[in-house]
């Protein structure tokens, strides 16, 4: 019971800190009034949502604290792949040629946050949208499919993202 309470307090503190940091960046002022209002708001929101923000079973700090440098690299790769896939989508639009398929595969990522980020990144990659995410099983609609083999499809769709994400979280 003690550890559960301590973990809850810690989650509350982390949520509060994140919210307050965003507040300070947004207001960009250090008045007493602004700081006070932000603290009250952050406290209220953290009290309401710390259970959703960081789930109770995510009991490892590596599960939600990223390695910053690797995260920046990952974001740069994400932006690059976003532009690449938009250009591919543009070409597919002009030529009117597509090969849509639904593929299934599994991911090796362990934490919820990493899986969520992987699902979101897959929505960015060349013409893929994540349809469903059950534990570690992903259902993906692939617009420019090149294969029907499910493991090969998994390697093509998620391969690069998964390798990078395993270094960011976990």
């Amino acid at each position, binding site marked *: 019971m003690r550890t559960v309470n301590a973990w809850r307090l810690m989650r509350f503190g982390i949520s509060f800190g994140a919210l307050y940091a*965003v507040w300070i960046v947004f207001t960009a002022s250090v008045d007493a009034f602004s700081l006070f209002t932000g603290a009250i708001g952050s406290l209220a929101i953290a009290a309401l949502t710390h259970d959703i923000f960081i789930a109770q079973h995510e009991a490892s700090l590596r599960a939600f604290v990223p390695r910053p440098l690797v995260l920046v690299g990952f974001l740069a790769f994400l*932006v690059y792949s976003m532009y690449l896939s938009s250009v591919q989508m*543009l070409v597919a639009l002009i030529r009117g040629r*597509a090969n*849509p398929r639904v593929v299934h595969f599994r991911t090796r990522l362990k934490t919820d946050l990493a899986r969520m980020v992987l699902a979101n*990144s897959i*929505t*960015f990659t060349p013409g893929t*949208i*994540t349809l469903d995410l059950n534990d570690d099983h992903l259902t993906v609609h692939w617009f420019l499919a090149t294969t029907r083999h499910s493991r090969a499809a998994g390697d093509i769709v998620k391969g690069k993202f998964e390798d990078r994400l395993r270094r960011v979280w976990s």
Partner: protein
Amino acid sequence: MGIVGEFIALIAFIAAAIFGTAGIVGLYRFPDPYARLQASSLCGTTAVFSIFIGCLALASSLAIAARLLVIIMFFLISSPTGGHIVAKFAWNSGIDPWRPERTERPRRRWWKRA
């Protein structure tokens, strides 16, 4: 920033216009929800992201740039999530993904005159 920033912003805004138009065209061109969502959500995300990059290049102070960065981060989280939720709804309601039909006309061989 000066002229370099304005040039970057110009390129970013042109890219945004192109991708935004492509998203709208895709929305009307494809027949089923998944393909429409592919075109519109992906190209829409890229267009809005390009506009943010252009704004970042034109940002006058560090405070505004920091705010823009936070907005970009939230947008990068929220936009694919929104697309995913619509796609998940379509998937759960059992809509069959569209397959383009192979309309291969029988090719007339010049050495086989019928």
